[in-house]
């Protein structure tokens, strides 16, 4: 197991390397002139000024040199300065990444808390009203566009009912109460969609498990239905659920832009999106790279977890 883990960890390195090349390449293919954005010159351009700025930001070197400089600095934790705010990129990212991770984690957590019981119930009470309701709700959840659902939530819970704040953010460690208060609605928006998906997954996994031979065996041995379900089938059915939730978490990290825009949640998605619009290269590069690394690591952890939970699969 250990050897396998180490092997997998080593395999990540070329992936991260390729990711960095992809990121750098894409970002530098963006149309729109960096210098132009920096100076916002209206037509007239002083070649001296352009030369000075290119020197300052290292834009006058050939592209592969720029890449290696970037990587070299990045390994030391220096991602350069934002072209727009002129603050170190680290400041831009450090404030943003925790917000997204926080939202994604709680969202997924919420989704599991809702989906597992619901999916199990639906599977156990197959083809009853419970099952149908659960299915309908989860089908609705996976087919509504995200931004639409979020806005409806805000209009309902914040405006009509006044139960929750419509938007906003407070950092967790400095203002925990307020932070959680603001978190509820966005996490619900994230969680509902994920829950819909996970409910269906749990339901079908449970159905698979229940129809397996060992269940009949356990029943015939006289074990209570409850024990059969909760002790054995649920545990086995959880394996795909948990691993897929882990993968969902990874993909969520890159996909929260829409919700962050609507809820004014200052996360990394919003930061990168804004940076793309403004052609703030250092921020885009650093942000996408960091996010990508997090995704790769989460995928790795999920893979290892899966093999731990399901020894049948083996290390092949």
């Amino acid at each position, binding site marked *: 197991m250990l050897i396998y883990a180490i092997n997998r960890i080593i395999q990540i390195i070329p992936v991260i390397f390729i990711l960095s090349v992809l990121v750098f390449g894409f970002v530098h293919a963006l*149309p*729109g*002139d960096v210098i*132009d*954005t920096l*100076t*916002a*010159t*209206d*037509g*007239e351009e*002083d070649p001296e*000024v352009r030369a*000075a*700025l290119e020197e300052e930001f290292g834009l006058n070197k050939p592209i592969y040199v720029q890449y290696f400089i970037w990587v070299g600095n990045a390994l030391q934790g220096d991602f350069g300065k934002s072209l*727009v*705010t*002129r*603050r170190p990129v680290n400041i*831009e990212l450090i*404030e*943003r990444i925790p917000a997204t991770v926080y939202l994604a984690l709680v969202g997924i957590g919420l989704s599991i808390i809702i989906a597992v019981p619901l999916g199990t119930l639906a599977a156990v009470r197959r083809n009853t009203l419970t099952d149908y309701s659960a299915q309908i709700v989860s089908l609705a959840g996976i087919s509504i566009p995200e931004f639409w659902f979020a*806005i409806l939530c*805000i*209009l309902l819970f*914040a*405006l009509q009912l*006044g139960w929750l*704040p*419509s*938007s*906003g*953010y407070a950092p967790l460690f400095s203002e925990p109460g307020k932070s959680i208060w603001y978190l509820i609605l966005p996490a619900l928006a994230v969680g509902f969609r994920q829950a819909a998906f996970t409910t269906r997954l749990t339901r079908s996994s449970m159905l698979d498990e229940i129809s397996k031979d060992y269940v009949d065996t356990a029943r015939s041995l006289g074990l209570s239905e409850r024990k059969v379900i909760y002790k054995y089938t649920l545990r086995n059915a959880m394996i795909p659920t948990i691993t897929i939730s882990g993968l969902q978490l990874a993909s969520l990290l890159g996909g929260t832009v829409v919700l962050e*825009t*609507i*809820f*004014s949640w*200052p996360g990394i998605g*919003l*930061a990168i999106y*804004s940076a793309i*619009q*403004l*052609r703030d290269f250092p921020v885009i590069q650093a942000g996408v790279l960091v996010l990508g690394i997090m995704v790769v690591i989460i995928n790795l952890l999920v893979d290892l977890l899966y093999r731990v939970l399901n020894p049948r699969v083996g290390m092949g």
Partner: protein
Amino acid sequence: MSKFKISNSFGQQTRREFLATSSAGMTAAAAAAATASMPGSAFAAKKKGGTLRFSTRSDARGLDPQRNVIYYVSHPLAATSGGLLDIDKNMDIVPAIGEEWTISDDMKTYTFKIRKGVTFHNGADVDAPAIKWNYDRVRDPKTSHSFHRSFFKLVKEITAIDKYTLRIDLELPSAVFLASVTYYPVNLIAPNSVDQVDTHPIGCGPFKFVSWKRFAKTEMVRFENFWQTDAAGNSLPYLDAIEGYPKKEDKVRLTALRTGEVDLIENMSYADAANFKKTQTANYNTWDIPQVGCGYLAVQSKTGPFAMDHPNGKLMRQALSHAIDKEAIHQAIFNGLSESLNGFYGTASSWHMPDIKNIKEYDPEKSKAILRKLNAMNTPVAVVARQAYSYMHQTGEIVYSMLEEAGFKVTNEVFDNPVLRKKYKKSDYGVDSTANSYRFEPDQWYSVNVLSSGPSTKLRTGYKNEAADKLIVAARATKDKQVRMEMYTDVESMVNEDAAIIYTHGIPLTSAATKKLKDYQPAFAGPFNISNGGVRTAYMEG
């Protein structure tokens, strides 16, 4: 004359002697001294203050006010702006840190008398050398944004004659230079704070910067040593603090107001504004800002079938102009909240010119006739617009249909600003659906976008009209407003006939606030940091 020692909280300047020599300062000092010793004074009564939570559509892009345009209508950070001169409710220029000024007879030299005793947020003096430092920084292309820099194009030299006198010499005579030294465009920062200008800027406006959490919150507190006082001698502003919350979604911003999470919002969506005004006036005040900007179509006239030097160029541009139905734009985009324009200034402005002539409006048959006569049916036209502003690309969408109906072969694209600028440079578009924010000094519009040597003119339309050029240059050197208006009226009539710029609409804006916000009146074109209104005179009740 009393002397006061003030030790400032930043500790950057160790000792200062505060000499209150101006009459306003005297009154403030006297009042402060008097009230400090009298228990039952007017001051002991309810003090105006409170914290204003202000939600806007956009967030500031950066903290350096000379490298980033901190828009005085919609960036809360503009509350920290301070400049040599101020703007008032009517968008007129009034004295501020520059108390008095003289203009030489040849209109090439401006001399300003600086108010004594004004300081930056960190206690440093706002004096002539500091202001000169600021203006030199703005003139340097390495450190400033071209928007700010363009206002100093005519400047030859800036001299600090003594601590409180500043002289500016111009290359050409100009009657309008005062507009270049108001707080918008140039927001003054403390010279000794330049190293932290991107992280903690030090200005001289009514509010001090505290913190900026990008995309989340901007915090500002009252500047206790602000130079301005009210009629009773109380120091302005009243508010204790302002918190800015950027919320991009119109619905979400409005919801935040209605649930009481914020006190003031700007830029209500046009669809919501009409309804809100009808149903919510019990608990909320609204302010109609009739013209925060001017919407227009810029026709690329540098090359191609619409070019200035193309023999049929003018007729082709007129064909474009005849095809535009301004009423449709009025209804569809602005929900009837604005007005169609023939010139840059709408009826709410003191610069509105009623006598402008225009060619025939909305006559698609005429467009078709022109195209047929010139054998130019199905001339390709690329309509472009900027992604960031929905009214721009929605207008573009309508213009697309209108031009198609008139017989052009139209394509429609929406771009981010960096890409758009590239297209301007390459003359790679046909019609740009765009807008310009309100200019309280007309020369700022005409000499930048209409004058053939203007930077925007050269970049975007390539418009050339010698007669108009002469008038614009002359108007710049004319002091009489009436005469200037007549000159600009002629210019606009020419612009309409040449149709390289097709004015469509005033861009309206609706702001709204809870009734707990008192005495808040933004200028008619939107700015909220003004000398006799906005956040300087506002306070929260309760």
